[in-house]
């Protein structure tokens, strides 16, 4: 009982913006210093709250991109042009600004070493963010769990973390398979279509090897991939999903 008693309520923190990195023309990573941050697990998210001068508040959830052992808390945010929060975070925020957030929240879509593997990650667009925290965590620990990422993007320019993923594939044994659904550069030999059953058969470990599967992205992609994997014999309890919905805001 004593342990439950010391668990604090979910409270808002004032984070300092340390660094901003443009990942693609629409996507930016925000490195934060959060005083008294209690730490997080790979796959968790935070709630971010913006307050206008007239007191109006808007709140959205963003996945944490950084591994627990990294020095800063990093969020990676995609600008949704009709959003209330993301245009500010992607276009206006400057180093030295303050940002209100609370968390980490969520204990379901989480990978830790104890969960084991092999681990199949399936991402659509900015759905790669919580999966990247898992990849970075696996690499940061020097852990040898087999990791394979199937990553659907519209075009090569829109591949988030492209250089880092290339590096991790070359140096750290993370297998990365891209599919580019809308346009492909000259000479592209990879997949060039939406994720389908054939692609999942080719990329995934068979169900008999009992991979842990994490799928994150737009709702339709997530549901299509999850139901296909279950139809291929994967245990639904090993197929974890995080749907972004049609938009995030």
């Amino acid at each position, binding site marked *: 009982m004593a*342990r*439950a008693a010391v*668990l604090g*309520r*979910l409270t808002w923190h004032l984070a300092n913006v340390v660094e901003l990195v443009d990942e693609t023309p629409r996507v930016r990573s925000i490195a934060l210093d959060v005083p008294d941050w209690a730490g997080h697990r790979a796959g968790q*998210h935070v*709630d971010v709250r913006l307050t206008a001068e007239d007191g109006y508040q808007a709140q959205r*959830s963003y996945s944490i991109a950084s591994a627990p052992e990294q020095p800063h808390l990093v969020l990676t945010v995609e600008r949704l042009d009709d959003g209330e929060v993301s245009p500010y975070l992607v276009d206006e925020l400057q180093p030295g600004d303050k940002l209100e957030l*609370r*968390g980490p*929240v*969520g*204990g*379901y*879509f*989480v990978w830790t070493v104890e969960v084991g593997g092999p681990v199949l990650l399936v991402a659509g667009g900015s759905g790669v963010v919580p999966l990247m925290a898992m990849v970075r965590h696996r690499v940061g620990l020097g852990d040898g769990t087999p990791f394979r990422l199937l990553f659907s993007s519209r075009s090569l320019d829109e591949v988030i973390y492209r250089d880092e993923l290339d590096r991790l594939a070359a140096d750290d044994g993370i297998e990365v398979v891209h599919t580019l659904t809308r346009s492909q550069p000259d000479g592209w030999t990879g997949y060039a279509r939406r994720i389908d059953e054939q692609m999942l058969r080719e990329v995934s470990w068979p169900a008999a090897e009992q991979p842990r599967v994490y799928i994150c992205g737009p*709702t*339709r992609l997530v*549901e299509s991939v999850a139901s296909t994997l279950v139809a291929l014999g994967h245990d*639904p*309890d090993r197929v*974890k*999903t*995080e*749907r*972004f*919905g*049609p938009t995030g805001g």
Partner: protein
Amino acid sequence: MEDADLRLDGNAAAGMFGEIFALELTSARARCASCGTIAELGAEPMYVHAPGIVVRCRNCDDVMIVAVHGGGRYWLGFTGTSWIEAREPL
């Protein structure tokens, strides 16, 4: 926009649950009162376009949890949930 586009996972309720409960509920297992299916709440389909959030059973689609926050209060309905099994805080 269709309902399917607006479907999220119970995982998306982590912030609101965290405001209310000391235990982490998205990784807690819950039993559907209608069909008896047991799953982690984070895995259940959830709808957020109602005035609050509605968590449904992934098997039979019956409502398991309704939660509304506004005007300085929370309204919580658990009629569709037989029980919840949550871990002690880490």
